[in-house]
C-alpha cells in the first residue's frame, strides 16, 4: 500500500461543465465535462504548495478507462462507475442527466471511482490510468493502441461457458450467488427507500399549509392570534427542513448504489473464472478425444462410434501410409495440446489465487464501507429526530399560549 498512487497524489474531480460539440455522426450534442485536478503530495510535506495539474474528461472517457481496466485485469474486482442515468428516483429528484443535482452527485461518484482505483494495490500502477489523470491529448488513441478490445471476451462466449462449465471452483459459484443476492436486495432496498423518501416529503410539506391558514386565522383572533401566528412560522420551518434531510440521504443511497454496481464487477470475475475453467475443460476433452483417436488408428479398433469411422467403412479403408500420416499429425497435436493444457492449468490456478486475494480485499472493504454507511444513516435519522423535537417543542409552546 506504500506504493499506492492515492498516497502520492491528491486527486479530485472538482468541477463539472456543460459543453456542446459534435459527435461521431457529426450531429450536435450536449454533454458534461468533468475537471480532474491532481497534485503531488510529497512536495506538500516540505511546506511547499505543489502546482495543480488539471484536465477535462467526459463520462464516456471514464467508461473507456474502466472497460480497459476490466479487460486488462480480469482477476480484479474493478471499482464501478456511478450510474450513467438517474435511477431509483423519487418524484422530487429529476431523472434528467443535465439536472444540476444529478451532475453534482455524479461528480462525487467519479471522484470516488478515481480514488478507489488509485488506492488499489494493482490498478494504481497502471500506466493508462496514470495518463488518464495527467495526459490530456491523445489518451484515447493510447488506450486503443493497447488493443485491449481484442482481448475482451465475447458476451456470447461467456454465457456459453457459464451454462456448460462442469467443475468451477466452488468458491466462485458461491460468490456468484452472493453477488446475485446482493444485487437483488440492494435494488429492492433502494426502490423502497425512494418510495419512503417520497412519502416522508409529502408528510413534511403538507404541514407547510398550516402556516398560511394560521396566519390568516390569527388576523381575526385577539388572544389566540400571537400563538397561532408563531406556531405557523414553526410549521413552515418544519416543512422546509425536509429538503436538506433528503439531500443528505441521497448520498447514503449513492453509497449503497456503489455496492449494487460492485456486484456486477464481482460477477465479471466469476464469469472470467468460468470461461477459463470451461476453456480448460474443453481443451482437456479435446486432448482426450485426440488421444483416443490416435489409439484407435494405431490399434485399428474402433471403440467409439465416429462419423469418420462410418465414412471409412462406407468409402473403403485407408492405406497404411495414410494412417501413419494421420497418427503423426495427431501425435503432434497431442503434444501441443498437453503443453497448452499444462499452461492453461497454471493460468487457471494463478487466476484463482490472485482473484481470490483481491476478493478477500474487496470483502473487507465492503464490510467496512457498508457498516460505516449504516452508521451514517443512523446519524442522519438522529439528526432528523432532533430537528423534529426542536420544532415541535417550539410549536407546543406557541399552542399552549393560545
Amino acid at each position, binding site marked *: 500500500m506504500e506504493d499506492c498512487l492515492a498516497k502520492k497524489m491528491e486527486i479530485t474531480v472538482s468541477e463539472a461543465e456543460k459543453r456542446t460539440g459534435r459527435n461521431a455522426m457529426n450531429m450536435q450534442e450536449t454533454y458534461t465535462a468533468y475537471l480532474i485536478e491532481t497534485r503531488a503530495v510529497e512536495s506538500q510535506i516540505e511546506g511547499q504548495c505543489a502546482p495543480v495539474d488539471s484536465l477535462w474528461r467526459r463520462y464516456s472517457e471514464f467508461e473507456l478507462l474502466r472497460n480497459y481496466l476490466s479487460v486488462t485485469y480480469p482477476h480484479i474486482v474493478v471499482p464501478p462507475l456511478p450510474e450513467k442515468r438517474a435511477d431509483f428516483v423519487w418524484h422530487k429528484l429529476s431523472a434528467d442527466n443535465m439536472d444540476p443535482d444529478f451532475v453534482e452527485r455524479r461528480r462525487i461518484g467519479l471522484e470516488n471511482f478515481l480514488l478507489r482505483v488509485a488506492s488499489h494495490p494493482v490498478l494504481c500502477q497502471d500506466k493508462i490510468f496514470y495518463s488518464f489523470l495527467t495526459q490530456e491529448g491523445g489518451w484515447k488513441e493510447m488506450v486503443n493502441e493497447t488493443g485491449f478490445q481484442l482481448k475482451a471476451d465475447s458476451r456470447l462466449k461467456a454465457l456459453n461457458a457459464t451454462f456448460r462449465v462442469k467443475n468451477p471452483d466452488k468458491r466462485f459459484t458461491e460468490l456468484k450467488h452472493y453477488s446475485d443476492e446482493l444485487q437483488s436486495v440492494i435494488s429492492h432496498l433502494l426502490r423502497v427507500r425512494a418510495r419512503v423518501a417520497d412519502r416522508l416529503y409529502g408528510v413534511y410539506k403538507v404541514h407547510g399549509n398550516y402556516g398560511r391558514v394560521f396566519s390568516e386565522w390569527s388576523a381575526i383572533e385577539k388572544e389566540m392570534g400571537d400563538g397561532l401566528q408563531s406556531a405557523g412560522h414553526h410549521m413552515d420551518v418544519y416543512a422546509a427542513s425536509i429538503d436538506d434531510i433528503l439531500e443528505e440521504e441521497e448520498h447514503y443511497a449513492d453509497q449503497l448504489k456503489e455496492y449494487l454496481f460492485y456486484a456486477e464487477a464481482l460477477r465479471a470475475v466469476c464469469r472470467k473464472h468460468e470461461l477459463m475453467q470451461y476453456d480448460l475443460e474443453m481443451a482437456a476433452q479435446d486432448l482426450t478425444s485426440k488421444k483416443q483417436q490416435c489409439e484407435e488408428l494405431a490399434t485399428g479398433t474402433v471403440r467409439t462410434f465416429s462419423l469418420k469411422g462410418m465414412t471409412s467403412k462406407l468409402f473403403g479403408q485407408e492405406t497404411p501410409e495414410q494412417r501413419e500420416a494421420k497418427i503423426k499429425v495427431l501425435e503432434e497435436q497431442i503434444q501441443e495440446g498437453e503443453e497448452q493444457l499444462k499452461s492453461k492449468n497454471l493460468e487457471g490456478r494463478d487466476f484463482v489465487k490472485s482473484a481470490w486475494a483481491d476478493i478477500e480485499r474487496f470483502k473487507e472493504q465492503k464490510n467496512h464501507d457498508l457498516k460505516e454507511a449504516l452508521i451514517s444513516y443512523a446519524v442522519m435519522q438522529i439528526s432528523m429526530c432532533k430537528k*423534529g423535537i426542536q420544532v*415541535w417543542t417550539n410549536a407546543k409552546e406557541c399552542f399552549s399560549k393560545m
Partner: protein
Amino acid sequence: DTSLAEVNSFSPSMPISPSSMINQYKFEDEPELRDLFITVDDPESHITAIETFITYRVVTKTSRGEFDSSEYEVRRRYQDFLWLKSKLEEAHPTLIIPPLPEKFIMKGMVERFSDEFIETRRKALHKFLNRIADHPTLTFNEDFKIFLTAQAWELSSHKKQGPGLLSRMGQTVRAVASSVRGGVKNRPEMFTEMNDYMETFSQKINVLDKIAHRIYKEEREYFNEMKEYGPIHTLWSASEEDIADSLKGVASCIDKCCKATEKRMAGLSENLLPILHEYVLYSEILMGVFKRRDQIQGELDAKVDALAHKKTEKDLFSEEIGKLEDKVECANNALKADWDRWKQNMQCDMRSTFTNVAENNLRYYEECLATWESFLASQTVDLHVEEDSEDRP
C-alpha cells in the same frame, strides 16, 4: 351535602375512556359542580322488515332532584338525536346548539355501517350530549331530560306531540327569507362583527379540516411504505456475516419507528380530526343562529314599519311591538352570552387539541431518537471491540 356525596359515589365501572373523561371536563364551566354524567356506547344493529338501523346505549347518572332516579339506561337511534336537536333549536333559536355528526359521509371510503363509521359517530354523539349537559341553559331543557330518561315507547309518543316536520321546515324557510329581506338592516354592530368573524372562521376551519385530513393520509402512506422497508434489511442480513448484526439493528430501528408512526396517526384521528370536524359543523350552526336572530329582529322591524303607516289600532300595535322588542332583547342577550361562552370553549379546545398534536409529534420523535441512539451506541461499542482485538498480537 347529598349532591356532592352522590357525585363521589360515581361508579368507576362506567365504560368511558380516560381521554373522553378529560374531554368532558375540558369544556366544563365548573367541573366540581357537575351533576349529570352521560355516556354513549354499545352500538347495536337492528333489522326489521323495512329497515336496518343502529341504536346506541345512553347511560345517565345524575344527582339532580328533578330526575326521579339517579341512573338511567336507554337506547336511542340517530333519528332520536335529530329530533332532540330540532326541539332544542325550536326552544332556543338563538342559542348555539352543539353539532350532530352528519347523516352520511360523502367523501372517503367509509361505508354506512362500517365499524369505523359507527365508532366515529358514537364518539360524536357522546360529545353532543355532553356539550348539552354542560350548557347552562340547555342542560335544563325538558326534551333533553325526556331524551335521557324515557323508554322507547314513551319517547315515540312524546315525539308525536308538538309541531311537525313541515312546520319546522317552514320556520327555516321563513328565517332564510326574512334575513334576506330585512333583518340585516337594523342589526346591532356587535352581531355584524360576529357574522364577519364567523365567515372568516368558517373558511379557515374548513381549510384546516382539509389540511388535517391530508396530513393523516400522507402519514398513512408513509407508514405503509415503512412497513416494507425494515424487513429488506433483515433479508439482506441473511446473506452477510460481518455486517449481519448492523443490518438487523437497522431493521429493528425502522420497525420501531414504524410502530411509533402508527401511534402518531392514531393520535391525529382520535383528537385533531374529530375536533376540527366538530368546529366545521359549528361554523354552519352559528351562521344559522345568526340568521334566526336576524329573523326575530326582522319581525320586530316589520311591525315597526307597519305601525308608522297605521292610523288606527295604534295601541294594539304598540303592545305587540312591546312584546316583540322583549323577544328581540331576550334573543340578543341569549346569543351574546352563548357567543362569549362558545368563543371561550373554542379557544380552550383549540389550545388543548393543537398542544396535543405537538405532544404527539414530540413523543414520536423522542421514541425514534431513542431507538437510533441505542443502535448507534451498539455499533460504536463493536468498533472499539474490533480495534482492541486488532491491537492484540
